[in-house]
């Protein structure tokens, strides 16, 4: 029998959602200040309206605070996170929709979902004349989503029961004993990378590319947020191809890789902990990256002449796809012309994704490694004599046991991702797109990548836009929080 959620349950959910909106209001001060500095008063007004809505929701949610916080259970955290990733884009889309650069509110919502989920697919019209302040806001959404919007809230409002919120957002590593300390470490890593990345990109923009310093800073800040948080938005319509600079591409590549590393690995690297190369996840991502890069280079051999162009293009796009960033240095129609192995390589890289507890999307390397290990164990069980003891351990910051339950859950999530990829492809195919292009775009959306072969555009069918919004949301939350929300809704409707 399903138990209908009590009023106290709903109040707790609303209270936490209000706090998350408070964080969004604080984050919006960056684009708001930028807009004031460059005198974009229309964008400033619309951003101020959004900040007002966020503060209203944050303040009035406090009215619902129960006398004592009460027991916050696992499902409550999941429901908060699932709702937050749907509702924050709804408010975040307000200044985008009012800008007039989106054909409809659905398009603006699509953009905000894509930003928050660090997907990077875009429906904006005339991006090259888009207000700077709103461009900074699009990229701030990447930063909020990549860092984990709930994680940001944790830093500000250390409260009981936050662990379930933290894990619901797809982060399961506990670097420090308390979740708050872990959250602060994650922010520290991001700030250090941010300072280094923005300094290098700004210097390259001014000294090597001839930009004015204010424009170089604008490009550096937005590209940093999109690269480190594996987002993929770009302030210019031609993405990273706009910069035509190997140094810029190299810096962006380092930031994309840093963003796709788990924060646990960042901590271990900072501590110079030995034995990192034994980690199953590190080995898996190095193996998949190496194989996919080799396959893509072979596939692109017919497209690019010479070792340097071939390596440059293949490396950048495989890193961009595998980390789930979605930057491109070629046009979407050029990408669509890549055929055979190169096309396959990019699709597989997108589908696999980066490391768990990172800013990347996709199935994630740890799940791939565990799935392969579980499958290998099963094959050994079949082939070897019955009494043979098969080791079921793996190494991930220490020796761990691959229990049947863990193997099952990992395989289930991996299969769900495959299903999500196929679902989007089926919808796009049914709407008349080529199957290979439909699959590319679907994987890009569900794995929160953002590379496009041209399907994603303001004139694509509404059904496909809604499907991709759902894919980005479900893919980002790695299914569990979405199922919890569905269960919560079902309990509300039919529970007793």
């Amino acid at each position, binding site marked *: 029998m399903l138990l209908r959620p009590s009023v106290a349950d709903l109040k707790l959910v609303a209270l936490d959602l209000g706090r998350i909106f408070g964080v969004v209001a604080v984050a919006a001060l960056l684009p708001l200040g930028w807009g004031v500095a460059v005198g974009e008063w229309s964008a400033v*007004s619309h951003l101020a309206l959004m900040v007002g809505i966020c503060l209203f929701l944050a303040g009035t949610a*406090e009215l619902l605070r129960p006398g004592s916080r009460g027991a916050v259970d696992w499902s409550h955290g999941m429901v908060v996170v699932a709702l937050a990733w749907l509702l924050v884009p709804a408010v975040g889309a307000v200044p985008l929709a009012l800008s007039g650069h989106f*054909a409809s509110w659905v398009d603006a919502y699509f953009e905000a979902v894509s930003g928050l989920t660090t997907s990077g697919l875009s429906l904006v019209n005339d991006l090259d*004349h888009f207000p700077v302040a709103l461009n900074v806001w699009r990229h701030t959404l990447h930063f909020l989503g990549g860092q984990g919007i709930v994680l940001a809230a944790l830093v500000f409002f250390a409260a009981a029961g936050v662990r379930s919120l933290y894990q619901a957002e797809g982060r399961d590593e506990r670097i420090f004993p308390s979740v708050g300390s872990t959250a602060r470490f994650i922010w520290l890593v991001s700030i250090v990378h941010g300072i280094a990345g923005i300094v290098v990109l700004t210097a390259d923009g001014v000294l090597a590319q*001839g930009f004015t310093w204010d424009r170089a800073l604008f490009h550096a800040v937005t590209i940093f947020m999109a690269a480190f948080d594996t987002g993929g938005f770009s302030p*210019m319509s031609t993405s990273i191809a706009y910069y035509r600079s190997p140094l810029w591409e190299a810096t962006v590549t380092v930031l994309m890789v840093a963003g796709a590393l788990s924060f646990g690995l960042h901590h271990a690297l900072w501590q110079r902990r030995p034995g990192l190369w034994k980690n199953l996840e590190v080995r898996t991502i190095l193996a998949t990256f190496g194989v996919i890069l080799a396959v893509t280079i072979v596939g692109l051999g017919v497209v690019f002449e010479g070792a340097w162009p071939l390596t440059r293009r293949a490396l950048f796009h495989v890193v961009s796809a595998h980390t789930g960033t979605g930057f491109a240095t*070629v046009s979407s129609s050029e990408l669509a012309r890549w055929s055979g192995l190169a096309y396959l390589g990019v699709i597989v890289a997108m589908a696999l994704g980066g490391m768990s507890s990172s800013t990347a999307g996709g199935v994630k390397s740890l799940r791939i490694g565990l799935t392969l290990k579980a499958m290998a164990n099963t094959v050994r069980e079949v082939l070897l004599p019955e009494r043979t003891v098969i080791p079921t351990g793996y190494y991930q910051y220490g020796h761990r046991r691959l229990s049947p339950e863990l193997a099952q859950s990992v395989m289930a999530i991996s299969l769900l991702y495959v299903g999500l990829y196929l679902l989007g492809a089926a919808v796009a195919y049914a709407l008349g797109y080529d199957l290979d292009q439909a699959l590319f775009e679907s994987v890009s959306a569900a794995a929160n990548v953002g590379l496009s072969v041209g399907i994603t555009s303001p004139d694509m069918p509404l059904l496909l836009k809604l499907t991709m919004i759902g894919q980005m949301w479900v893919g980002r939350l790695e299914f569990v929080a979405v199922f919890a929300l569905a269960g919560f809704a079902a309990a509300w409707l039919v529970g007793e």
Partner: protein
Amino acid sequence: MIPLLLLAVILAPQVGVDGLDREPDRYDGRMVTIEGEAVGDYGRRGSEVWIQINDDPYRDAPLVETGLTRGPNRGIGVWMDVALFQPDRWGPPGRYGLRGPILRITGVFHHNDPERGGETYLEAVSVELVEGSRRTRTPGVSVPALAVGAGLAAVGIGTWSVLYRRRRNPITL
């Protein structure tokens, strides 16, 4: 040599960026002419300059002026010798609040050029200014949006601060 080059410039077919993007092999290594708006930044790098030329529905009037959503931008990178670069005549490149200069550029189209790290671009031979850049009409402060935003913020902050003070100093009878 110079008359031959002049002849090639004069005879170069005018193509859209869309055409170059759809059939790059057809135009690879050929002299073509494009016309469009310079947007973003002028990337002056010593003796050479990179600019982006957009040949899309917004080249004459950006969206902010017409209010018409006509799809994403469409542009190509143009490489030119600094001798062809005349920013003082052209005016600033297009961005929010600015319609960039409309340039008519003739040059050699390169697709995945191995000499330049695999770039696809137009190597300019001649650049003609069609129309200089100009400021565009941009909307000013939206008073209703600001008023509603300020009102909502005041209610939110007010509610929060009253509740916060009550919790800090509970009223006891």
